[in-house]
């Protein structure tokens, strides 16, 4: 993505660097996901060489990191558009990009080649912290904080100097929260309940609050750019979404505090607020479709060209509306009440929800941002979806939905047999794992994982070649 850039600003170029690494990490996520899925079916595959604990850790870490990269990239990309000026510390921004990328590379190499260490603080500081999703060793945590502080300073100084929009105000305040919350994860305690209490501050308040608000802001920006939606209206929606997302999501944190040693009042608080969490997602879904339809109708009425100016990005934006509601909203609601969660907690049900939610809520809109960067880089007025664009979105969406259905069935089976029927012991766990329903579900999960990966190859091919397609040549 380096040659013949049409970017008007260096900040957009920097954004596209972040996107490039994000795509590579997305590929790593899928590869390690496939290995983990194979290990569920053939447990001896890479046993004692690259065990499930490692492949699964890299699978989910690559996921988190590629999304963070794509979000930082998105902010650098939209910053000049929103503020009207070049990012102030662009040189430092580029330096920080290389520092972060070097740090991520070292962390991944250590994960894969060193894997585990002795039970002491050196392991925690240099190899792994062993806490799901945020296993990155402490040195890397500190590095991440420094890089993020630089990124925040860059964004703030630019926003203060340039035009201040509602979208920028939301992004800035959201990013302070996002960065601040990461500090809650840099913490060691012997008390596992306390450990998980703060661990959830990072995990939940990222993916069920601050990340969702970031999605709202990116969707607002994308609607303005792609379908010429009116800023006033889009920003009003955005503020309503922020109120609803934070209003439900912050205390929705309680649904992780049902069973970790925390007081019983979290049952009521967690149930009530997390049950409200799908509401803003319905709103966001309606908002995207409504604005798209309204702008199209207005243009048709005046006889103007009513097509959007970036159809692949719009396709991904619409799938974000669906996917966010379905994956985060519906699949989350399925098991959010404590009466249900006492049986579903810690089963494949959570994995089903995780797959569809991370994809529907985040992967979709971030891929949409990749397409916007492609459009910007090549200066294409109207970017049209190609055959590859369509294959990519179809196969990836179909694959993830397939994995979700398979994991949901596995989850049901586990809930009923291992938990409700047999009481959750070591034997109960393996009795459930040996059931035909479980092994069939795991087979289908792998097949659908392969489908997703094929879709990913179409996506990469499309991102590399869509600008050369005759219909898109400027």
């Amino acid at each position, binding site marked *: 993505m380096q040659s013949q850039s049409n970017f008007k600003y260096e900040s957009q170029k920097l954004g596209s660097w972040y996107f490039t690494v994000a795509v590579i990490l997305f590929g790593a996520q899928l590869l390690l996901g496939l290995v983990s899925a194979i290990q569920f079916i053939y447990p001896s595959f890479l046993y004692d060489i690259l065990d499930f604990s490692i492949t699964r850790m890299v699978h989910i870490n690559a996921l988190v990191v590629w999304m963070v990269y794509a979000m930082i990239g998105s902010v650098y990309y939209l910053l000049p558009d929103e503020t009207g000026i070049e990012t102030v510390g662009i040189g430092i921004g580029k330096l920080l990009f290389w520092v972060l990328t070097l740090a991520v590379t070292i962390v991944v190499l250590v994960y894969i080649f060193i894997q585990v260490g002795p039970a002491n603080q050196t392991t925690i500081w240099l190899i792994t912290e062993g806490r799901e999703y945020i296993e990155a060793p402490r040195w890397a945590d500190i590095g991440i904080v420094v890089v993020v502080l630089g990124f925040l300073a860059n964004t703030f100084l630019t926003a203060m100097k340039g035009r201040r929009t509602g979208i920028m105000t939301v992004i800035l305040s959201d990013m302070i929260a996002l960065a601040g919350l990461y500090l809650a994860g840099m913490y060691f305690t*012997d008390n596992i309940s306390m450990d998980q209490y703060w661990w959830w501050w990072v995990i939940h308040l990222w993916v069920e609050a601050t990340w969702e608000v970031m999605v709202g802001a990116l969707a607002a920006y994308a609607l303005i750019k792609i379908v010429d939606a009116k800023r006033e209206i889009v920003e009003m929606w955005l503020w309503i979404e922020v109120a609803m997302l934070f209003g439900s999501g912050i205390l929705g944190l309680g649904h992780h505090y049902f069973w970790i040693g925390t007081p019983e009042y979290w049952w009521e608080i967690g149930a009530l607020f997390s049950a409200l969490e799908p509401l803003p997602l319905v709103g966001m879904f309606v908002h995207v479709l409504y604005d798209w339809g309204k702008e199209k109708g207005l243009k048709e009425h005046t006889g103007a060209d009513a097509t959007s100016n970036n159809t692949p990005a719009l396709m991904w934006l619409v799938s974000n509306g669906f996917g966010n509601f379905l994956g985060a909203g519906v699949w989350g609601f399925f098991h959010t009440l404590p009466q249900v969660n006492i049986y579903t907690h810690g089963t494949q049900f959570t994995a089903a929800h995780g797959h569809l939610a991370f994809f529907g809520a985040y992967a979709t809109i971030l891929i949409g941002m990749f397409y916007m960067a492609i459009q910007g880089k090549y200066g294409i007025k109207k970017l049209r979806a190609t055959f590859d664009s369509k294959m990519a979105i179809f196969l990836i969406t179909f694959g993830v939905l397939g994995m979700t259905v398979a994991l949901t069935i596995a989850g049901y089976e586990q809930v009923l047999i291992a938990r409700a029927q047999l009481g959750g012991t070591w034997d109960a766990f393996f009795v459930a794992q040996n059931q035909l329903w479980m092994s069939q579900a795991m087979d289908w999960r792998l097949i659908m994982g392969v489908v997703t990966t094929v879709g990913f190859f179409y996506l990469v091919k499309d991102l590399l070649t869509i600008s050369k397609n005759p219909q898109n040549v400027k």
Partner: protein
Amino acid sequence: MKTKKGGQMSRKKVSVWSDNRFWQRSATWVTGFASILLIWLTFDTMGQITMGNQKDIDNHIAKKVPSATVINYKVEYNMNQFRGHEVPVIGGDDGKGNSLFKVKEKFFGRDDYSQKEADALLHLGKLASQAKNCMDCHTLLGNGAYYAPDLTKAWLDPAWGKDGPLQSMTGKNTKEEAMAEFLQNPGKYPTHARMMPNLGITPKEAKGLVAFLKHMATIDTNGFPRGFGKIKEGVVYAKSK
């Protein structure tokens, strides 16, 4: 309603429902209120989940997260009549599912670990649980990966108990020794086609890990997992594929 940037909005007479400033203020208030409530609840929860000490046990005070010295006591998971679900019962049951804090149980041959010794063991075990990435195959308190059994109440699993298949598999005579032996040589004791990898766990680390598991079993998890180890069919050794 004068705004510097929103000139368009301020000139028009608009309903409050379509006024950006109204929604911006609402978002700020709602977020602020939710955050303050969360912080307040966090203070309360911190007080309730701070780890107890031996004095609490001596005074028969049941803590959500009890002292590390619970390793000196017998631990059960019994139905509590008042709460309507199982709770960890430490040092004997009063018949209603409350802890008596009396009945001791040997842990690696001793039931007199001092506060300092027990704390050190738990510290080592917790560090080991992270250094070995336990959570990326197992779940702890239900959180983690779903490749291997949940460890929340693993200490109370009848399969590790006397005559339990997991204990007899290792040839050891006590639960703690059997668990420690398994953790050090998981490749020697396959319980399923899906085997635990060899993680280079030392005898000392294994002892710490077992202490960590025993302590975790005493955390009051509001009845999770429900019915753990109570259902006969659930404790029959599952034949590997």
